[in-house]
């Protein structure tokens, strides 16, 4: 087995999701190489080379890849993939955008969002918003896979000394152009990796009221998330969304405030170690998955929680 892991990064540090994806690669077993595509990303290449158990880091560091356009990156990944049995990425918007394009160029199916490795050809993955788990087997020589981070242990980040190889990018295609990005600024920890997440739903009423969550989050060192309804209503930006079509989180503690607990929301948080629900409706489905609940008005409960901490 030879596995190529496509790194997720921001040109300065390697994303934690990639460490989980490397965990999945370790379970598959075999030689593991990392491919870093970026612009001015030497720090990422170095960090990748320090990960124990990595054989080689291939690095295409050029202006062309400063912005992650799948149109430019996919042909290079296709070229690099030759000779590998597995190409892995994380279930992030970066890899979700890129890897199916690579798979089609290689004329192989992609296995999306795996939650388990059965053997080198056989994988478990959630379907129907996590309401069923499918086991699928690939009979193709090369398997293109994205990995659900919350289901795999992260690998260590120091102690390795992989060989680094620079590779050339092809010239740019002219079809797609990066225009702009608006980064949502968040002060607390990252939603995807925080140890505690506190999410607000439609019950929050408006965006200003999220200050109630921010206050508690600051005391707990928690990240703030949201339901789709809260994002659709414009209370908070899109990258707060937890769920089937948002982010999947599995913190030690998840606190759902004014969230009913629709299956699409549960799909993104039901693997949390402990779940707390605060909702004024005692029949809200969220209480069926909660370890602790308070039935009450969040506008009373949240200030009291803040005071009790």
């Amino acid at each position, binding site marked *: 087995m030879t596995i190529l892991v496509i790194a997720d990064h921001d040109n300065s540090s390697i994303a934690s999701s990639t460490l989980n994806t490397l965990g999945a690669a370790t379970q598959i077993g075999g030689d593991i190489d990392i491919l870093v595509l970026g612009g001015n990303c030497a720090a990422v290449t170095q960090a990748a080379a320090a990960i124990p158990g990595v054989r080689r880091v291939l690095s295409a560091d050029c202006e062309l890849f400063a912005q992650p356009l799948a149109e430019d990156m996919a042909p290079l990944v296709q070229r690099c993939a030759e000779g590998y049995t597995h190409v892995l990425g994380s279930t992030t918007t970066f890899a979700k955008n890129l890897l199916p394009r690579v798979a089609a160029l290689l004329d192989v199916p992609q296995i999306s969002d795996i939650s388990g490795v059965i053997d080198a050809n056989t994988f478990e993955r959630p379907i129907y918003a996590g309401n*069923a788990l499918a086991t699928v087997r690939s009979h193709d020589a090369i398997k293109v896979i994205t990995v659900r981070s919350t289901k795999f242990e992260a690998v260590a980040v120091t102690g390795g000394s992989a060989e680094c190889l620079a590779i050339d990018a092809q010239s740019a295609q002219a079809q797609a152009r990066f225009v702009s990005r608006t980064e949502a600024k968040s002060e607390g920890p990252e939603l995807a990796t925080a140890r505690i997440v506190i999410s607000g739903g439609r019950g929050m009423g408006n965006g200003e009221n999220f200050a109630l969550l921010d206050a508690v989050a600051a005391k707990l060192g928690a990240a703030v998330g949201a339901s789709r309804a809260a994002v659709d209503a414009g209370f908070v930006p899109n990258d707060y969304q937890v769920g*089937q079509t948002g982010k999947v989180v599995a913190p030690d503690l998840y606190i759902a405030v004014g969230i009913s607990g629709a299956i699409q929301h549960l799909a993104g948080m039901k693997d949390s170690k402990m779940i707390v629900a605060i909702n004024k409706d005692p029949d809200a489905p969220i209480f069926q998955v909660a370890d602790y609940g308070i039935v009450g008005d969040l506008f009373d409960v949240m200030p009291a929680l803040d005071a009790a901490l």
Partner: protein
Amino acid sequence: MKILVGVKRVLDHNVKVRVRADGSAVDLDNVKMAINPFDEIAVEAAVRLKEEGVATEVIAVSIGPEKAQDTLRQALAMGADRAILVPHGGTTEPLSVAKTLKALAEKENAGLVILGKQAIDDDCNQTGQMLAALLGWPQGTFASGLSVTGEQIEVTREVDGGLETVALNLPAIVTADLRLNEPRFASLPAIMKAKKKPLESITAESLGVDLAPRLELVGVVEPPVRAAGGVIVATAAELVEKLKHAAAIA
């Protein structure tokens, strides 16, 4: 410009998912099926482009059972002009769907293809990206905004860190995210009119595509049920005590 829209017939998102007793698949017998929610958004986006005068014709395509005609009729009722069914029993995989859509996009000389970002049954999130690769076209995935100016389309994409905007030359592929628009309800007259709109059937063979799945489905199980403690506490102070006791917070 012609727009092709992919619509998949899936288990309705409000229906409880049940796995067949033999563990072979999710049970789809006698349950409510519906248009994939993201595809409804894709149809709405295409119809709006026609209403703006950007598109000349909207063609809805489904690869699936004869019953997928209902799904296509829904797209027609929302304003699509005609529909194509590629009949297929059993599951479809994104790669072969992408190959089918490629053949149809070329046949129809489409200038834009809009798909959903994800089918809510297989949760694959692949087809649009694969189609873009096969056609050699640019892709604007997870779109929450789009605007066409001349030979270009600007797409705002929902990404993990926020929003990103890309400019793509046409022809291009767009995949719709939830916040791209709010799909209209088809009016009764529109539903009646849709019954008369053309719906043709084209076989995969005639398009040179093999729809047989490449991945082997070994089995399907229900996920382990969460053993929730289900303790209701009366006050925030009591909650904090419990959480401290469980070492969930410091």
